[in-house]
């Protein structure tokens, strides 16, 4: 266990994926990959859960459970307090796969269910050589299992408290003073703030982790 931990420290974690379905091994046809990607993007939009598919050739000798734990910790799929992320890892040369489930979805997607999805929906088709069918089946099974849980309501907008009003007032006054004394600096400040806003977290396309965590729940399989 200790030397496995050392090995995992030395191995690099791949960078966070930008799409819901990533296929580094060319296992799927582009049509399937795009279709599954859309399904999972839709799932996130309607329920908020972030489900990813990560396909690569090999973990490089590392047990898939350790790789999955590290990747999940680095990518953080799922929302911060809800921990509703799931990643399906598939390694085509190792012929191993794993469903890593975030804390929040463990009651819905139990270890037993993950194992069933893997052994009944995915591996039989992988053994038969039909990777597209296998992954499509797997994703559909995941969506069905997870689809029941509705997205929580958006957080209510809150009004400012008194100290916050005071601080806001002071900032406005300060800015006006700056505008009078040094208009060029004030102008720079405005452009800087606008630039920061644009680079904010309002990315509409692509996946980005929202701080979810996992504790090792899920199941592994081989074919």
């Amino acid at each position, binding site marked *: 266990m200790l030397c496995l931990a050392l090995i995992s420290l030395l191995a690099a974690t791949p960078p966070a994926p930008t799409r819901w379905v990533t296929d580094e091994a060319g296992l799927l046809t582009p049509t399937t990959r795009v279709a599954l990607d859309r399904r999972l993007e839709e799932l996130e939009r309607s329920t908020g859960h972030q489900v990813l598919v990560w396909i690569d050739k090999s973990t490089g000798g590392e047990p898939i*459970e350790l790789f999955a734990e590290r990747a999940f910790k680095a990518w953080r799929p799922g929302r911060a307090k809800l921990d509703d992320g799931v990643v399906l890892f598939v390694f085509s040369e190792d012929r191993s796969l794993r469903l890593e489930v975030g804390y929040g979805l463990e009651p819905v997607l139990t270890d*037993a269910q993950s194992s*069933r999805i893997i052994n009944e929906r995915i591996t039989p088709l992988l053994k038969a050589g039909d990777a597209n069918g296998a992954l499509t089946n797997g994703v559909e099974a995941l969506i069905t299992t997870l689809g029941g849980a509705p997205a929580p309501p958006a957080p209510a907008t809150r009004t400012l408290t008194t100290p916050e009003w005071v601080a806001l007032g002071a900032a406005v006054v300060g800015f006006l003073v700056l505008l009078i004394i040094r208009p060029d600096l004030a102008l720079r400040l405005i452009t800087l703030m606008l630039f920061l806003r644009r680079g904010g977290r309002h990315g509409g396309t692509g996946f980005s982790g929202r701080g979810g965590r996992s*504790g*090792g729940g899920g*199941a*592994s399989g*081989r074919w």
Partner: protein
Amino acid sequence: MATTAQHASPHRSSSSGMLFALIAIAGLSLLVVGWAVSTYNALITGDQDVRSRWAQVENAYQRRADLVPNLVETVKGAAAFETKTFTEVTEARAQVGQVSGVELAGVLEDPKAFERFQAAQHTLGASLQRLLAVSEAYPDLKATANFRDLQAQLEGTENRIAIERMRFNEAARDFNTLRSRFPAMFVARSFGDRFAAKPYFEAAPEAQKVPAVRF
């Protein structure tokens, strides 16, 4: 007039010198106290991290212990004659129940208690592996959905245990580093046992892996 002037100035400079020294000492003391307070808070935070990680480890182990009765019953259904294995598992679980009861409160402070906890959990893990190995010989058992589910749950639990142990060790390492560093060690030691070093989970003598039984 010259004499009074001469007489006045050394008196003034020595008193202002003393004042300056007092201010300097006061300033320095404030800095030291400030540093000590922030170090204490960092130690407290580190200690709490370790404790919360420990709670996770306990959860994961408890999950495994909870699976045992169901697993034993299921296997007994198909393999009634393997009484030795069942007894082993049941006894190991009882042993785990003992070390998890009253003793658990002080297990992070007492290295011997920690040792006992680890040993009991390891014994349970080993006997569960043997139970699964025995089940291999009963294809009817392996085919039942119930057994497959239990097996999946057991594998998942073993994985969780491994991960929570790893995370606990990380938190313990961070805390132990914090408390041993110079000059933070002075703050740590001045509170007696409050910030004693935390134990680590050791690898078992035989490498214990996730039960590798797969279909």
